């Protein structure tokens, strides 16, 4: 060794990307990733199949979305399986939790954390690299899956997507990545907070279950309790509706669902209650992409904010953490 050959040469990979590279290869080789991948691919083809069998059904009434035939690949269903975007909304969190729940505590329990942090790297490299690598894996997976679905759909129905449809699908995929990134960050946060990987996995899943199942129940209870009387003025009714919807929107999955519906169903023109005055005179025509994006902009911002909050929390608690061996 002894030969003092430690040139800090150019062309040597930056330590941050060294960690990212290692994390990605760890993720991709791990069993849980393969299992999750398998699960998601399966649902993907399942929903593609149901939407395609449903498309051939000529007895259906024409809908304003008919101009966007290709998008129906992602939203149509014959009722036996939920459509593509609902599946992603359901399984995406699992994927995020699966990739993040043992990010830091497994390093701690394996005794590698103090060894890595005693190398000349900034402490935040590790947590940033963990996040970046999982995000890269998720984006690659989602885009590959999205394009695969599009390709298969193209092959099966023989109608190419219009540029607008293509862009809508790209935005949908970006939104999905963002949504999974939220769950990823939440589970990374728990992996810093809890020493046992099992605890952090369970906590993440508990939060996910709470938001997908119990939160709706609670909101319903509240809604029923504060429901205005039948004599209430339209303004009061409107305010009440708005309040209940806003309560629902605290949940990331609601934000994601709102976002995807608007992006994939161009005929959706509002996510809140509309008065007759607003609807009156509206041309029953699908919205342009720009208009749809405008509608989902608050949802998008909300999701980004939730993700950033989770990341900031984990960043803060990781930087303050004292690194002890095992």
């Amino acid at each position, binding site marked *: *060794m*002894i030969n*003092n*050959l*430690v*040139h*800090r*040469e150019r*062309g*040597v*990979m*930056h*330590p941050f990307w*060294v*960690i990212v590279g*290692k994390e990605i290869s*760890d993720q991709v*080789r791990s069993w849980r990733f393969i299992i999750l991948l398998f699960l998601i691919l399966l649902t993907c083809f399942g929903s593609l199949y149901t939407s395609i069998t449903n498309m051939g059904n000529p007895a259906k009434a024409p809908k304003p979305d008919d101009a966007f035939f290709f998008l129906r690949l992602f939203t149509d269903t014959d009722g036996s399986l939920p459509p593509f975007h609902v599946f992603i909304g359901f399984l995406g969190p699992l994927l995020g939790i699966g990739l993040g729940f043992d990010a830091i505590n497994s390093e701690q329990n*394996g*005794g*590698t954390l*103090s*060894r*890595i*942090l*005693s*190398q*000349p*790297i*900034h402490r935040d490299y590790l947590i940033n690299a963990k996040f970046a690598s999982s995000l890269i894996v998720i984006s690659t997976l989602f885009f590959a899956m999205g394009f695969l679905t599009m390709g298969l759909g193209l092959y099966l129905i023989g109608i190419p997507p219009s540029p607008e449809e293509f862009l809508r699908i790209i935005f949908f995929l970006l939104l999905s990545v963002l949504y999974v990134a939220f769950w990823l960050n939440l589970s990374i946060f728990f992996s810093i907070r809890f020493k046992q990987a099992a605890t952090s996995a369970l906590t993440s899943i508990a939060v996910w279950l709470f938001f997908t199942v119990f939160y709706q129940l609670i909101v319903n209870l509240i809604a029923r309790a504060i429901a205005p009387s039948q004599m209430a003025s339209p303004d009061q009714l409107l305010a009440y509706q708005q309040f209940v919807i806003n309560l629902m929107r605290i949940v990331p999955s609601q934000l994601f669902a709102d976002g995807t519906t608007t992006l994939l169903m161009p005929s959706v023109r509002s996510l809140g209650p509309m008065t007759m005055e607003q609807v009156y005179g509206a041309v029953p025509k699908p919205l342009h992409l720009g208009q749809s994006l405008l509608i989902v902009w608050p949802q998008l911002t909300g999701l980004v904010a939730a993700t950033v909050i989770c990341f900031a929390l984990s960043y803060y608690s990781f930087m303050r953490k*004292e*690194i*002890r*061996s*095992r």
Partner: protein
Amino acid sequence: MSQEIIQLSDLTKRYDSLTAVDHLSLTIQKGEVFGLLGPNGAGKSTTILMMLGLTEPTSGSVQVCGINSTTNPIEVKRRVGYLPDDVGFYDNRSAIENLMFTARLNSIPENVARARAVELLERVGLSDVGAKKSGKFSRGMRQRLGLADVLIKDPEVIILDEPTLGIDPKGVREFLELIAQLSKEEQLTVLLSSHHLHQVQQVCDRVGIFVSGKLIAQGDIPTLSKQLFSAEPFMIQVAVESTERDERLLSSLENLASVNTVKFLNGEYLIGCSTDITPHIARVVIESGYGLTHLHKKEYGLDDIYNRYFEGAVI
């Protein structure tokens, strides 16, 4: 040679109510092997973490290689190799892949790193298992791989936290020999923390004794015993034919010049004195009419120091 490489001044670390490190001041010279000795929970690991900038001191400052560890930990970590106690590796990677990962984190060019990794594996005696996954390694093997991992960045200082914990005696000896050899050949400064006295005694040039956050003594082992047993640097054990306590002999021994204490314990007289008066004692015993069966001048080892401090036992 007498270049100060680690300087701790007035270092304090407080956790809520507990003071882990209490106004610690310590200097370590370049090229020496320093043993940080103390019972569990004395604050050894906390001190080491502060040297690496892995935790912040409540007050005081740490300088390693002339760099402040708290404000500029990256530069310190570039020069210091740290082997935590119970070091871990990525189980699904081979030994050599683990070493290469560390080398890459240190921005060592690939070809240099590979050559060095192979050389180091050879050196720590793991060259035949270099391609095996580190998850299958035993504790001793992990510790040796840890040493290779520390050395791959070609450090100026290596800090080993309880490096011999949980290794069998033969492994410990080999490991310590390797450290001693490395420090001589590479002019490495080694800081070693342990609660195993004999091991520290074996390899360290100097030791510091650390109890509940305070450094109570430091120096090489002869100096230490002088420092700690200044009242009675010599302890002479005498056994005579009779195993009965004899007050007359006891008092005549006590009357000798420079004798401080005389005790009778298990058929032996224990005489603590300030100068070496073994011949006088022998004469006194023989003059009092007893046959002398055993006369032994006791040297203080770390064990005695340890007992003196940690267990409060009187020697």
